[in-house]
């Protein structure tokens, strides 16, 4: 923004007339830091008092008794919903700021022309930190290919980006502990890397749709104005984080609330071990079935994880449920339809197949280990 525009804006919002640009940015930065600190303090205050708050509301304000089904369910609900939302807000903000350092343009430059094994590992890791919106999957895919990122490496990125997302990790951490969250991240990344590796080995470059091959083989990468803002100031990075919170948390909170409500209900009312028969450790066929059911389904992590937790409480085997969750998040019918426009059936099939098998293996692994 040039000085004239900045000054014009300041005047129109009734600020003192003679204000220099330097004063403006300093004041704005100061405002950011102050409100940032205040918000953080407020967050901490709320977070640490949630348990007593939830108990207070459930048992003092509402006429519920302790030790009853309904009491336990409601207390759980009132405790978990704000807790998860607070945690989500903080984590999404922090991850948002981290992501401001990793534009897709930069990721592309890191990955272009990397040798295969290193490329897959990097692509998987970068998928976690690069900002990614699922509607941009195809443009990103094609942009990477055009810029010389090998096909398999691009696929590694495409698998890890939606699956290993911070919302899923926060929820898993909150409801299952850090070990499970870490395990999810580790196995998710492994599946991403292996998928890319397999596709590289099979040399399936010829199975891109003709129009895609034509565009990507031109090798001309456009400049991406607005996307390669790597020299952002901190004010902009904070705005990036805030935008991420607005975009993600505002989109996701109804699902989280509903998911926790359903989870709380199952918690309180479904008898223990109800599901042990069909989803328990004994049912070895449950893993593939759960995954095959999950693959076509479309949901975001937010809604489904609380339900997952409740199912586990009622006797479903952990691996089965986690595999189901991965399958739902990683692939879906809408995504497959979109990818079909870009990939020939054989390549699409290999992609879906490898990811599915990978998740099934992870499901069995979790069942054995946990």
């Amino acid at each position, binding site marked *: 923004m040039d000085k004239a525009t900045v000054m014009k804006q300041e005047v129109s919002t009734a600020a003192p007339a003679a204000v220099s640009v330097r004063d403006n940015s300093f004041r704005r930065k100061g405002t950011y830091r102050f409100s940032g600190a205040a918000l953080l303090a407020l967050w901490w205050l709320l977070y640490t008092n949630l348990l007593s708050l939830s108990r207070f509301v459930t048992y003092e304000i509402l006429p519920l008794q302790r030790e009853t089904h309904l009491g336990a369910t409601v207390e759980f609900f009132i405790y978990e919903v704000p807790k998860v939302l607070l945690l989500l807000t903080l984590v999404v903000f922090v991850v948002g700021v981290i992501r401001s350092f990793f534009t897709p343009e930069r990721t592309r430059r890191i990955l272009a022309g990397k040798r295969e094994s290193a490329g897959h590992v990097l692509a998987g890791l970068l998928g976690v930190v690069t900002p990614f919106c699922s509607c*941009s999957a195809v*443009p990103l895919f094609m942009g990477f290919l055009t810029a010389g990122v090998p096909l398999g490496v691009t696929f590694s990125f495409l698998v890890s980006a939606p699956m290993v997302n911070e919302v899923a990790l926060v929820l898993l951490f909150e409801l299952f502990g850090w070990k499970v969250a870490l395990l999810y991240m580790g196995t998710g990344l492994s599946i991403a890397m292996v998928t890319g590796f397999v596709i590289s080995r099979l040399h399936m470059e010829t199975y891109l749709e003709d129009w*895609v091959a034509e565009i990507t083989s031109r090798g001309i990468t456009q400049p991406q104005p*607005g996307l390669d803002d790597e020299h952002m100031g901190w004010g902009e990075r904070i705005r990036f984080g805030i935008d991420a919170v607005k975009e993600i948390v505002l989109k996701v909170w109804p699902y989280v609330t509903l998911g926790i409500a359903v989870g709380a209900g199952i918690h309180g009312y479904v008898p223990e071990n109800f599901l042990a028969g069909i989803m328990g450790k004994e049912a070895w066929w449950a893993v593939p079935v759960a995954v095959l059911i999950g693959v076509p389904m479309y949901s975001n992590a937010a809604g489904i994880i609380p339900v997952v937790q409740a199912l586990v409480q009622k006797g479903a085997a952990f691996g089965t449920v986690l595999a189901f969750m991965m399958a739902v998040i990683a692939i879906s019918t809408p995504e497959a339809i979109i990818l079909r426009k870009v990939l020939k059936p054989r390549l699409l099939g290999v992609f879906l197949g490898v990811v599915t098998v990978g998740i099934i293996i992870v499901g069995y692994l979790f069942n054995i280990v946990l």
Partner: protein
Amino acid sequence: MEVKVLGPGCAKCHALEKNVRAAIQELGLNVEINHVADIKTIAEYGVFMTPGLVVDGVVKIVGKVATKEEIKKLLSA
């Protein structure tokens, strides 16, 4: 002047279009807006992320929802 909003129809693309319309209205310009949702056409522009803003055939903004002010500045330049 011809303005195109590139995007397959997610919330961000609609937000961008809304900002574009507001900017155009405030500037009082006579401009045609096209919302391009077809993936093949979007791919031809070589953008990495949607939403994208194209003015007179040149890609001006990629991957973010530009504010009304940013768009106004672009269109007046």
